[in-house]
């Protein structure tokens, strides 16, 4: 963990505006991402993890707005900048060269009426005007070859490619301008398990070579345990626990993390008895005064209902749970 910081997210909040009032989809998110690090973000659907992705990349669509916080980006050369305060024009110059994204459904992410190659060359030539058409095409060929697609598929239209090919070409596309950070939003949900393994292995290998950092969002915690250096667990728009993959797996602190871990079968460990988490995620438009997980938590008690617990460093990870509050008499009971 000696690498310098690449991205510092500080108190980030995202609201969805509705005529009836706003719903806070992400609240007070803070974390630091180091160069070349893979940070996994896990949570149930509706936990705000996809909202976090669009906020980080400043791609959110109405009615979502960033209502508070900073996203400080540290370029390899030059001063740190707050992405939240940047104008669309200034951002455009940073996009893809520093900040790339791989989205969920590959079928919908490629322009159906443009050849695959053209979707590479337009971004290549936008960010490097000195590149001529032929050189850009050549470079596009190199990129798709990296993910196991023959360059002679470049003239194909997206509908002529298989699902796996489309997903891998999106990863190749993300690497086109050699970014510092690639944000991935469940890039493997639409493909079968075999392809999922291949893609993950590829992401790890390419990271080794190019050294980009990754924020990888998924609902599948077991997948992150394989892939990520650190994992953040989100619940109801907040990070409830963040720490290294190993710590999180072997010594989960938050009851929700425990529940999440125990509801997935481990990939490379002896099978444990699986148990789900009863109940369903809360309504974000009408947040509880205390811990949002309280109503579903097996260890809930009176202190949980008083205030939203802040993230506290407990041993190797940070946890937002009153069980670890030194002032809480119940805290002694912790795992």
């Amino acid at each position, binding site marked *: 963990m000696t690498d310098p910081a690449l991205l510092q997210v500080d108190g980030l909040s995202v609201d969805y505006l509705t005529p009836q009032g706003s719903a806070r989809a992400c609240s007070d998110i803070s974390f630091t991402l180091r160069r070349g690090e893979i940070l996994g973000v896990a949570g149930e659907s509706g936990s705000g993890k996809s909202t976090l992705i669009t906020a980080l990349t400043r791609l959110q669509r*109405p009615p979502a707005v960033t209502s508070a916080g900073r996203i400080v980006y540290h370029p390899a050369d030059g001063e740190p900048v707050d992405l939240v305060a940047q104008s669309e024009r200034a951002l455009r110059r940073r996009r893809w060269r520093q900040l790339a994204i791989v989205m969920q459904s590959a079928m919908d992410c490629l322009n159906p*009426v443009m050849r695959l190659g053209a979707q590479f060359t*337009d971004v290549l030539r*936008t960010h490097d005007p000195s590149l001529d058409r032929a050189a850009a095409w050549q470079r596009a060929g*190199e990129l798709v070859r990296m993910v196991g697609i023959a360059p002679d598929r470049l003239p194909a239209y997206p509908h002529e490619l298989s699902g*796996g090919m489309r997903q891998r070409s999106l990863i190749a596309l993300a690497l086109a301008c050699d970014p510092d950070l690639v944000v991935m939003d469940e890039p493997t949900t639409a493909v079968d398990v075999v392809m999922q393994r291949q893609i993950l292995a590829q992401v790890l290998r390419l990271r080794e070579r190019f050294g980009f950092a990754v924020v990888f969002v998924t609902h599948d915690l077991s997948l992150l345990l394989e892939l990520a250096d650190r994992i953040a667990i989100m619940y109801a728009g907040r990070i409830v626990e963040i720490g290294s993959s190993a710590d999180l797996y072997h010594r989960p602190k938050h009851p929700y993390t425990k529940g999440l871990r125990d509801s997935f079968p481990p990939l490379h460990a002896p099978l444990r008895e699986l148990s789900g988490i009863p109940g369903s995620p809360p309504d974000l438009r009408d947040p509880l005064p205390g811990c949002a997980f309280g109503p579903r938590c097996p260890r809930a008690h009176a202190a949980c209902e008083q205030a939203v617990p802040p993230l506290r460093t407990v041993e190797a990870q940070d946890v937002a749970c009153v069980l670890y509050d030194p002032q809480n008499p119940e805290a002694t009971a912790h795992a």
Partner: protein
Amino acid sequence: MRPAADPDAIRTTTDPPPAGTAPGPAPRKRRGALRYFRRRLGFYLFTAWAAVSLNFVLPRFMPGNPADTLLRDLQDQTGQAPTPEQVHTAQTFFGDPTKDLLGQYLDYWKNLAHFDFGVSVTNYPTPVSQLVGQALPWTVLLVGTTTVLAWVLGTALGAYMGWKPGSRFDAIFAPTTTFLHAVPPFWLSLVALWGFSYKLGWFPVGGGYDPKVPFSLNNVWFVLSVLKYGALPACTLVFVGFNGWLFSMRNVMVTTVSEDYVLLARAKGLAAWRVLFKYAARNALLPNITGLAMAIGGILGGTLMTEMVFSYPGLGLLLMKATTGHDFPVMQAVFLMITLAVLVANLIADSVYVLLDPRTRDEG
């Protein structure tokens, strides 16, 4: 940092090749496009046959004898008994009574092949083909220019509105176009004619050209007078027409803008105009082309009615004179012209669609 040859590349691809990829992409695609085009052409030929046959069948199965009706009307109008030639024309137009139905049908096709639509009854003995031939260029000119203008204008404005829904421009235009779209074109023509020609006197009250100028395409004054006389009908038609395109393009655009590929284009840091044109509008355009094919019949109908209001010397005026004079041969010829024009327009729209949407080229 650029990798030359990549050792990490995965060679064991699990994807099966897409169906029918044997000879490489280019020839396969062209064949697909050709097949699609041939299928559409076949459909339009069949539809044309159906229309032409309907045109044959209708008068023969209508209650009463159209030939008699026609002669009676003619007598009512002129106040004198029809000449033997007129009686002959009226009777033979609906087929030689001495032949059976199949024989009449074959004769009918033979005549059509020679562009012989019979002889006009009210303008006896002018051949219908001559009347239609005189009127057709005016209608083609009017409907062609106004449809293209309205479509381009509506689509462009709609793309802009859909790009930024909720803008002030959008908030003003969306309701106005809704209302204008609901106005019958011939009524709007009447209002325009009354307002601009009668009240303000900016435009001529009717006709397609200045009758005082010699009728010749080489004459600049004649061409100018055509523009002057055509301006108000054309403006009215564009004004009526563009609302529909604007509205549909806006709605498709709003949906397209929230597609993931547009979001990704934005994430790629492409220039705004490139995202707008190459990603959003380029895809939103496709339904509007299909829409053009579907709407062309209605547009033509509206144009003909507008011609009647402005006494514009096209098929519409011819049709109006024919219906009031019960000139069935002319009505039938105009019907055929409209139908065939619509089919041709559809075929053109289909061909453009094939060029613009690669997905149609691979459909079996």
